[in-house]
């Protein structure tokens, strides 16, 4: 049975690093572990050995139980067309300008691609643990909503909106512009743009059954996963983390922990400089103490307001560049729910 861990949160909080660090710990603890990342920093990619890799998981040269894969969202979107449409329609979709735009613009598309790929790895049952570093879109919430949104997109909701009623057959479609509403649109856009879009959506709709079924499979995988939300103590990522307590209940998965990254030592909050300390160093301690206090207040408020399990990871000034560095990062952590990822504490 493969255990799944989803690492979510806003961009720039160190999600990928936390995912990688957990993976190294698990692999060194004897679990066959796959870490799936999206767009890692170069030094981290080097540490994981995924610099030149694509969607295919590869074992690490120095750590045989550690596997890594990097996600390519655009490739996964093309796969939606080839997997779920007739070859002729799939080819037409693949070089359709609207298909490219929808895959770029549809807010959930990168998240869908990532969720689809991650679910594939979990279903392969080739690893004890699959750790997924999710795309930051929507603070990570999009990842959970993506399968349903995707089915909705191809299911014809947009098409019905354009036609303003029941779905027409392909032939009836060309008379659409006779409708007053669409005449206005034509005059604004100065072309048959709406018709071209609707025709594309008719093609896309043929993938509906496949996408809807796959969406339900993906949702089952996500629902059985352990979720960690990573944040710093800054207001913007904390706002995103709060969404998991306000919006996620509807999506069935409750986070096992909120991991506050880049945490300063608690003791600094009350520390004062001994007599004889230079003014420069005294002021330096005072400002970092103020920062420590702010971090603590942020955590306490989060925990009391949302009842979340809070874990912390110490601020490491230089990002880890190798497997040992990644493992050390979690030696400086506290209250991580190790048992949720199948490991013993420490």
């Amino acid at each position: 049975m493969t255990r799944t861990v989803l690492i979510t949160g806003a961009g720039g909080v160190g999600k990928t690093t936390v995912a990688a660090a957990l993976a190294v710990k698990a692999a060194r603890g004897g679990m066959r572990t796959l870490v799936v990342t999206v767009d890692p920093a170069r030094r981290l990619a080097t540490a994981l050995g995924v610099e030149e890799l694509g969607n295919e998981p590869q074992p690490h040269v120095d750590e045989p139980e550690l596997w890594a894969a990097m996600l390519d969202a655009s490739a996964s979107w093309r796969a939606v067309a080839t997997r779920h449409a007739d070859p002729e329609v799939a080819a037409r979709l693949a070089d359709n300008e609207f298909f490219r735009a929808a895959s770029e613009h549809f807010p959930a598309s990168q998240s869908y691609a990532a969720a689809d790929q991650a679910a594939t790895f979990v279903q392969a049952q080739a690893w004890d643990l699959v750790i997924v570093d999710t795309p930051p879109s929507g603070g990570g919430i999009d990842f959970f909503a993506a399968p349903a949104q995707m089915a909705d997109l191809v299911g014809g909701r947009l098409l019905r909106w354009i036609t303003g009623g029941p779905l027409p057959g392909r032939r009836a479609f060309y008379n659409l512009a006779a409708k007053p509403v669409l005449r206005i649109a034509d005059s604004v856009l100065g072309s048959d743009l709406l018709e071209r879009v609707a025709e594309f959506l008719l093609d896309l709709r043929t993938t509906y059954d496949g996408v809807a079924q796959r969406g339900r499979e993906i949702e089952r995988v996500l629902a059985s996963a352990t979720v960690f939300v990573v944040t710093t103590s800054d207001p913007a990522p904390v706002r995103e983390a709060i969404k998991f307590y306000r919006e996620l209940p509807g999506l069935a998965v409750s986070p096992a922990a909120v991991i506050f990254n880049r945490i300063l030592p608690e003791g600094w909050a009350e520390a004062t400089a001994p007599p004889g300390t230079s003014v420069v160093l005294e002021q330096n301690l005072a400002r970092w103490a103020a920062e420590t206090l702010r971090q603590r207040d942020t955590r306490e408020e989060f925990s009391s307001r949302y009842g979340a399990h809070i874990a912390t990871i110490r601020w490491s000034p230089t990002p880890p560049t190798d497997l040992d560095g990644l493992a050390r990062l979690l030696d400086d952590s506290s209250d991580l729910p190790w048992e949720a990822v199948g490991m013993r504490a420490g």
Partner: protein
Amino acid sequence: MLEKRFLLVSGKGGAGRSAVTAGLALLGQRRGLRVLAMEMGSPGGLSAHFGTGPLEFEPMEVRPGLHAMQMVRSDALLEYLALQLGIKGITRFGPFARAFDALATTAPGIREIITIGKAIWEVREDRWDVVIADAPPTGQLGSFLRAPVTISELVPSGRIRTQAETMQEMLRDPSLTELVVVSLPEELPVTETEETLAWLAKEDLVAPPTVIANRVLDELTDPDTPPGPVGEAARLHRSLWSEQQVWLKRLPPDHKLPYLHGVFTPGEVAARMADEFETIT
């Protein structure tokens, strides 16, 4: 920066875009300018910095002389149709609005052109001396700035195309528009900013941007490391500082904003940003 009529503030997510937007808006207000601050993306950041409740599409006065608004695409579209095209009687939930929503999800450039169109409409209004927009993050900046070109390619004729061409000229006019890119002296933000700058230079869609590095630490002038928290704090500060130097050297910014230690509320952050801008612009 405040000599321009239109400031677009972008940057990597989490670098402090909203704080910089709010800081610049407060500085403009202190200097007696009539300012409109505009949240283009999802709500939350800008209103927190001004300490108001949720912003609305209709600009509200958040300080004397400083207005703020939230972009709402469906409202912007209706306003565009009514004011610029003279098409009245369309409601937010009517069939036209829904059809347009479908288009905005599917056709490239549509959703962006409505957002930029609204901003540029306000820039041309005599009501404001400067419009400062909390623009999409650098990851989405490409499709955003390219929208007028995309529309021109997609739509061979018609009124929306004519207007797209006007927008393109205004974005490119360096006496009118300035793009501000907010970055952090860390690996990923610097890499993303470099990619954005290279792309911008190639595409020539907007005048060369101003780069701001946020959360920059100063150098500790005392090299001592005594035992206890004093020394630990000094050691952390020094290693963060030298890590930052690597990235500041790689991408020298036009302006630096300091790390704000222990500043609690977004309102305080915005006020401190405005103080800093006072010294550099």
